[in-house]
């Protein structure tokens, strides 16, 4: 058991090193996210002025805080280009080496993913600190440490869902030469139903009820809503955990099926 843990710990450490190399790329990406944040502030400030001074029962500051949280979460848990990396390894035959070794490809990739997000998550704090003087007036986090207690497990499971979806798309390379179309198509869905365009509780009730059953809700919105105090009812949070766990299991199963089916189609050429 310990040996297995040690094996993936090494992968994690190597992943950490190779991602630290890209710290500037992450920082630049973080700085560009500030432009996105500027657009968000401009749009929602204007929308809030045109309404009753708030949006959907939340103040402007609470709304902007939601988007800032989303941005931080994105750098900590969302899949960046893991799908393409996996796709590349399949197409170039690089996965052949894993087939011969006592290593689980999912666990190997997931260890690297965790390392990469740890680096990008910590790096994005730098541009945010730069923007803090401007952003400070928009920050309205709840003063209750229970949000951390409830939010962190949701965040961890969201990371697994994020990675599993990317992994699924990567594995599609066993069947398709080009996966970019699928990835961008699903990105549009994730952007909308994951709450990146607007907080999902602004949806009409029936649409919100549907969104709550889909995996996209648990990719990003669920932890963000807990952290920012949009979702406070413990019953609803525990219900959410239940659905989230179900999606984690379902996605892991799909991954397993795709992997074993895909390998049957895979042809390893050369030595």
């Amino acid at each position: 058991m310990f040996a297995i843990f040690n094996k993936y710990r090494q992968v994690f450490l190597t992943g950490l090193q190779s991602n630290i190399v890209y710290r500037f790329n992450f920082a630049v990406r973080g700085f560009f996210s500030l432009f996105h944040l500027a657009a968000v502030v401009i749009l929602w400030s204007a929308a809030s002025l045109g309404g009753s001074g708030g949006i959907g029962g939340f103040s402007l500051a609470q709304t902007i805080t939601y988007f800032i949280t989303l941005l931080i979460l994105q750098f900590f848990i969302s899949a960046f280009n893991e799908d393409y990396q996996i796709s590349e390894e399949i197409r170039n035959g690089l996965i052949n080496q894993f087939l011969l070794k006592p290593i689980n490809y999912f666990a190997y990739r997931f260890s690297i993913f965790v390392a990469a997000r740890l680096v990008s998550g910590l790096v994005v704090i730098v541009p945010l600190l730069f923007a803090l003087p401007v952003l400070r007036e928009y920050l309205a986090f709840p003063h209750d440490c229970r949000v951390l207690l409830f939010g962190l497990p949701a965040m961890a499971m969201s990371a697994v869902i994020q990675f599993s979806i990317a992994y699924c798309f990567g594995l599609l390379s066993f069947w398709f030469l080009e996966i970019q179309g699928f990835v961008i198509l699903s990105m549009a869905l994730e952007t909308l139903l994951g709450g990146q365009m607007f907080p999902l509780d602004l949806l009409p009730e029936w649409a919100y009820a549907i969104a709550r059953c889909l995996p996209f809700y648990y990719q990003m919105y669920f932890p963000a809503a807990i952290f920012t105090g949009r979702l406070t009812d413990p019953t609803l949070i525990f219900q959410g955990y239940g659905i989230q766990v179900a999606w984690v299991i379902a996605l892991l199963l799909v991954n397993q099926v795709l992997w074993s089916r895909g390998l049957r189609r895979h042809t390893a050429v050369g030595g």
Partner: protein
Amino acid sequence: MLHYAKIWAASARYSITRTLMFRGDFFVWSLVELFWMSVNILTITIIYEHTHAIAGWTKYQMVLLVGTSMLIQRFLMGFFWSSIFEMGRNIRSGNFDFYLAQPGNVMFMATTRKLDPDSLLNSLVAAAVVIYAARQLGLDPSAVQIALYALMVLCGVVIHYSILVLSISLAFWLTSAQGIEGSYFTLTEFSRLPRAAFTGIATQILFVWLLPVVMVTNVPASLLVQGFDLTLSAWLFGSALVWFAAAIFVFNRGLRRYTSASS
């Protein structure tokens, strides 16, 4: 002029043939764009469930603005996007030599080589969004107004084209122009906002006047909604000329530095 039209028609024929060869790709990419456009429209709809106006713009005025932004973007993507981005890669790899040997202006040849029929198809959807919003607003634009709107959209395409060519031309100096694609998409986010929403002086100077991404959509949309404004339209027309001239200048300067990369 006729010579260039013939060259362009040949490229268009080639692109369409290519699309017909990869029909699945065409289908998926058309769907991708359609999806993204729907995401933007849906967002507007949801926001207006909770507010009456964004910087004085009503729901359908905003849809008209977003539709105009889509229209400009689809034209840009349909006619130039692939070629301009390939140009960046070709400068790095040395394949750019190919364009130097062609019978025409290098910038024209390099930036009009590929069409994306999926984006052109979706420009019809964007146009439909604009028409739908105009009808909902009860607008009845005259033929002159429609012609002026088209001219302003054209100016918008020219400005976006010039900004892109200019940024990708930096590859002549920097070798790699990677990452520009992502930053460009961030900029387009601003083009879906009404000008009056930019209340801060810094954002106004940067996004409204220096980088005219906001004006590019606001001028044509306001032309339909509020009527023709000579100063703003003339300003947009003028900045299209200035940006285009700047793009030509930087491109040609860069071209002088091009040393190829073949061994």
